[in-house]
């Protein structure tokens, strides 16, 4: 395993190799377009491109259950993070407690769209992506079949992945705390820990999510109807 291309997942070399193959038997490298033969992966295996080394396919055991669990946790933690007290500042007897909504209002002062965008990238998109994963996977897991429009919903969720920035926000919070530490006392509130937890859950979800598995489920579900 690891960074090496796995055995049997090699690139076909000539026409006779390929003539017997259907497109379903092939995987094109997303990085360099090289064709590879598809082979069933064992759980935990990673297939990489023989030329450029990009990941072709992974097989992660228990992806559906883990992603559902992580998504439920995500929705709850982000809800806590948005509504609860995030940070408290104390100085000379003055005390000020702020939530993420206050941070959004401060950035949006004077009608700047940045305020809304802040809430969107740290809370809105992570929640929406978690709900999208639940919409796609939960009905299937409960035996109700694949949800209507699951393909479009899952595609949207994948495309939004770089724009969900809760983890980057937490680094920004850490930098702010150090900046203020010299002039005032600052202490994290429950919402701080909730968002920190959400970032950890996101890491777990990203590690557990196997897109190939989900796409296969969606394609099979669509065939059933």
């Amino acid at each position, binding site marked *: 395993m690891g960074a090496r291309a796995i055995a049997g997942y*090699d*690139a*076909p*070399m*000539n*026409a006779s190799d390929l003539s017997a193959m259907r*497109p379903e038997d*092939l*995987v*094109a490298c*997303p*990085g*360099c*377009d*090289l*064709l*590879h033969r598809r082979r069933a992966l064992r759980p935990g295996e990673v297939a990489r491109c023989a*030329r*450029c080394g*990009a990941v*072709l*396919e992974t097989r992660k055991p228990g992806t559906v259950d883990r992603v559902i669990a992580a998504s439920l946790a995500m929705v709850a933690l982000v809800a806590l993070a948005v509504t609860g007290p995030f*940070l408290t*500042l104390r*100085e*000379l007897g*003055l005390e*000020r407690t*702020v939530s993420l909504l*206050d*941070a*959004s*209002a*401060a*950035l949006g*002062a004077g009608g*700047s769209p*940045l305020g809304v*965008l*802040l809430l969107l*990238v740290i809370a809105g998109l992570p929640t929406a992506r978690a709900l999208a994963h639940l919409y796609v996977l939960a009905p299937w897991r409960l035996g109700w079949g694949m949800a209507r429009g699951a*393909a*479009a919903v*899952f*595609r949207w969720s*994948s*495309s939004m992945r*770089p724009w969900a920035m809760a983890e*980057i*926000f937490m680094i*920004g*919070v850490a*930098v*702010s705390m*150090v*900046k203020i530490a*010299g002039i005032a006392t600052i202490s994290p509130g429950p919402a701080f820990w909730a968002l920190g937890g959400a970032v950890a859950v996101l890491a777990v979800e990203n590690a557990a999510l196997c*897109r*190939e598995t989900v796409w296969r489920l*969606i394609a099979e579900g669509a065939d059933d109807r």
Partner: protein
Amino acid sequence: MTAERRKTGRITGRMMGREITEHGVTARDLGLIGCAECALVQAESRARCARCGARLRRPDRASLQAVWALLATGIIAYIPANLWPMLVTRSFGRVDESTIIGGAVDLAAHGAWFIAAVVLIASVAIPLCKFAAIAWLATGIARGSVRGLHGRHRLHTLVELIGRWSMIDVFVVAVLAALIQLGFLASVAPGPAAAPFALSVVLTMLAAQRLDARLIWIAADGRAR
């Protein structure tokens, strides 16, 4: 020259009127295309993926125009982002405006070297390196360069991965402006640089996304259209 030959691949045969290198066959060689979203291999003539419905993007040098447009706009937005103040502090009636670099210099002057370095790397080093990297990659593709393919592909992956972390400074401004509202004692407001800075990060993220890594390798195949 021998080293380059080994990297780009010796020609080992012909198929369907095209030269096949020792590495194997690309999807494009066979009139196939791999879906960027769900990786399904299918006929190149399709407009949308048969499985997930995503628009199928053929590797096309014309897409570099969008990359250049997004990059140029991102660089233009980065200029006011650095010249205008990022943070406006009012303390005992005194107004103090600090730019991104000015704020980092202040931090370093107060001995917070590590945080100053984080801010400088995220807000200055990463964006500048990103501008240079995207421009260099786009130029290399346009010129049909076959040098350092692995390095250039890795650079593209790195730029896509790291670009979003530049948002840290915008988040720092949001947290500081929310927290430090102590009336006459001290108050902080976001400066006019916050919006162009965020815009610059978003535009260059889009530029990196639009840059198609497959074009790097197609040039090396020597069969670019």
